């Protein structure tokens, strides 16, 4: 069976290396088209080049040789090509009689291939797969579909190609887009200052590269794609500019005009890692962790068209949304640490510009909206796919300002206190998570005081006053999680592990906990 090497997995995956000839092809192609190319487009060049190379090599080999077919007869001295042995060439050294009961009599050729003697059947009258076609072996190459090869083996080839080109000085790239240094358009300091001024005039951005380019008075003879790539490359290297578009798009913003909360995470959203024993968390607590879906929980992102979260105090205060497992896939993150999105409040038809801060796992820009809509702590916020990749819908369950009994935190004599009060709430909320406050400044002071306390101490400070609200003197895990986060950013895992570990915290069933004063050592 005739099967070119360039149609096998071994060739493209197991043994594949980028050669100097491949690089030369790519370089020449970029010089010819003068337009940046994606890794996939360059891989296509490699595939085409390799297939042609094999075809030419075979055509050259075949020019003075015969193709081996078991049905033919040969003579000593004949030079043959063996299609089923990766088109190896050999010379017939001798011929003897051959026999087997199934095929009868035939010739056996003794052929020298790469200095080694091997034997092949000839003048065979029985059927054999190599006798099926009389076409010239190079005709097989006419049927090869390079796009199909790319679909089949492209991923491995692209990874090798990326690594090779990345190590070469002649090539430059922006993510998966490649160009040659020699063709880069000169973007000077004047162009960069002008870009800054253009962005400043547009309140910092975001502007696409094309929107900036029109103001730069570039030579009209230059190819726009080359200018665009060169400008993107120069802006990326300049600290003043931040690339803020979602994945696969490019848009620029002036860093100094971004909100402070985008550059530096608000203090109350910063989680300083707390070590805990994972083995303490049983299946039931793990389910609860999944339900709470804290952005700092180690949960796999779920691919859904609708994402939900319940607000806890730090997010409600800072006007942010957690980028948790249910939300993450709705914000297709690019390579830049910040992206600008637009959220649309469907009911009010209001557009709200927000920032996704990937590293610190939050979406910033909802402080005014939370305030105007009266969104409480514990409220459920829904984000769903919008009309564009960078535009999503924002929603919550609207209620007519009903009076509800809610937990409120206050600070008296340096101690945190909780009480139930009737408040008008106009949004759906989780009854176990809601903990409001009218004492933000006092809680701020307490937050600072608590920064040096152990987690056990923090629980011992919060749990007893919270338990006083309940006739059984107990607190639900979710309520404790919500209240603790008024004094320190703590995801549920370390909190629940500490509740299980410390003897002063007693589980009383149904996720409720009680504080045992006798067992508290005052640490």
């Amino acid at each position, binding site marked *: 069976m005739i099967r070119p090497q360039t149609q096998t997995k071994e060739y493209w995956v197991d043994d594949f290396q980028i050669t100097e000839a491949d690089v030369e092809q790519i370089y020449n192609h970029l010089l010819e088209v003068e337009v940046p190319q994606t890794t996939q487009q360059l891989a296509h060049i490699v595939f085409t080049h390799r297939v042609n190379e094999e075809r030419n090599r075979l055509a050259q080999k075949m020019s003075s040789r015969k193709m081996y077919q078991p049905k033919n007869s040969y003579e000593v001295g004949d030079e043959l090509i063996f299609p*089923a*042995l*990766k088109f*190896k060439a050999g010379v017939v050294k001798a011929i003897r009689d051959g*026999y*087997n009961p199934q095929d009868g009599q035939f010739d056996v050729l003794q052929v020298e291939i790469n200095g080694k003697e091997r*034997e092949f059947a000839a003048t065979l009258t029985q059927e*054999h*797969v*190599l006798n099926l076609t009389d076409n010239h072996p190079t005709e097989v190459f006419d049927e090869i579909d390079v796009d199909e090869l790319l679909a089949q083996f492209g991923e491995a080839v692209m990874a090798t190609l990326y690594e090779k080109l990345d190590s070469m000085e002649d090539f430059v790239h922006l993510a998966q887009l490649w160009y040659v240094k020699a063709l880069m358009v000169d973007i000077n300091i004047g162009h960069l200052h002008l870009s800054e001024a253009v962005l400043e005039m547009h309140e910092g951005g975001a502007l696409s590269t094309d929107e900036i380019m029109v103001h730069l008075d570039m030579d009209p003879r230059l190819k726009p794609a080359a200018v665009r790539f060169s400008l993107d490359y120069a802006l990326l290297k300049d600290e003043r500019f931040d690339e803020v578009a979602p994945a696969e798009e490019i848009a620029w913003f002036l860093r100094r005009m971004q909100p402070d909360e985008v550059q530096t995470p608000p203090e109350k959203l910063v989680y300083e890692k707390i070590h805990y024993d994972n083995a303490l968390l049983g299946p039931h607590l793990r389910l609860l962790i999944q339900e709470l879906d804290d952005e700092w929980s180690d949960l796999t992102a779920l691919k859904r068209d609708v994402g939900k979260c319940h607000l806890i105090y730090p997010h409600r205060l800072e006007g942010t949304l957690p980028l948790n497992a249910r939300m993450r896939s709705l914000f297709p993150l690019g390579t830049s640490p910040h992206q600008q999105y637009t959220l649309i409040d469907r009911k009010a038809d209001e557009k709200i510009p927000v920032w996704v801060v990937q590293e610190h796992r939050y979406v910033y820009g909802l402080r005014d909206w939370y305030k105007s809509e009266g969104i409480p702590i514990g409220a459920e916020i829904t984000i769903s796919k919008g009309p564009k990749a960078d535009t999503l819908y924002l929603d919550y369950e609207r209620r007519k300002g009903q009076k509800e009994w809610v937990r409120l935190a206050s600070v008296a004599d340096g101690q945190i206190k909780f009480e139930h009060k009737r408040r008008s709430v106009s949004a759906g909320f989780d009854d176990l998570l809601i903990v409001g406050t009218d004492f933000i400044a006092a809680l701020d002071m307490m937050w600072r005081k608590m920064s040096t306390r152990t987690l056990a101490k923090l629980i011992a400070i919060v749990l007893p006053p919270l338990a006083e609200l309940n006739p059984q003197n107990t607190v639900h895990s979710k309520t404790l999680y919500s209240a603790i986060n008024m004094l320190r950013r703590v995801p549920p895992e370390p909190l629940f592990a500490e509740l299980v570990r410390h003897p002063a915290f007693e589980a009383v069933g149904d996720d409720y906990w009680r504080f045992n004063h006798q067992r508290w050592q005052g640490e």
Partner: protein
Amino acid sequence: MPRPKIAAPKLQVPTADTRFHIDYSWWEESNLDLEAYVISRLNVGQENLIELDVEQVDIIDPDTGEVRLVNGFQYVLQTYFSQQEDDFINTTSFVDAVFCVLLANANRPMTANQIAKRVGRPADVVLKTLSGPTVYQGIRPLFDED
């Protein structure tokens, strides 16, 4: 005077894609008798094997056209096993089962993965057993044989 440079020997380590076959020369070089092994260990009655009046037979590879010269008994064995169902796999030891599988495939080389599927054992078990220093029943890896 600089020391002469000695090229490192090229070590070939079998992988799950390395092909194995029965190397009949191993039987010829050993003091074991292939016929006795087949009749006693593999439970093949003499009456089940066809009579052949030639000493040597040229087997043609159905893919490449390459010819392998085997003796008449080896040919008879291959013909017998290629006509059998895979039941023998359940009634023999692991190494004997691999031997039978290769014979059933007309001793055309098979990868550890292919053998593993036929004998119902993990590929790494096949690979470890057949790649060790001990050669079982002449089953050996083939390197660069094409």
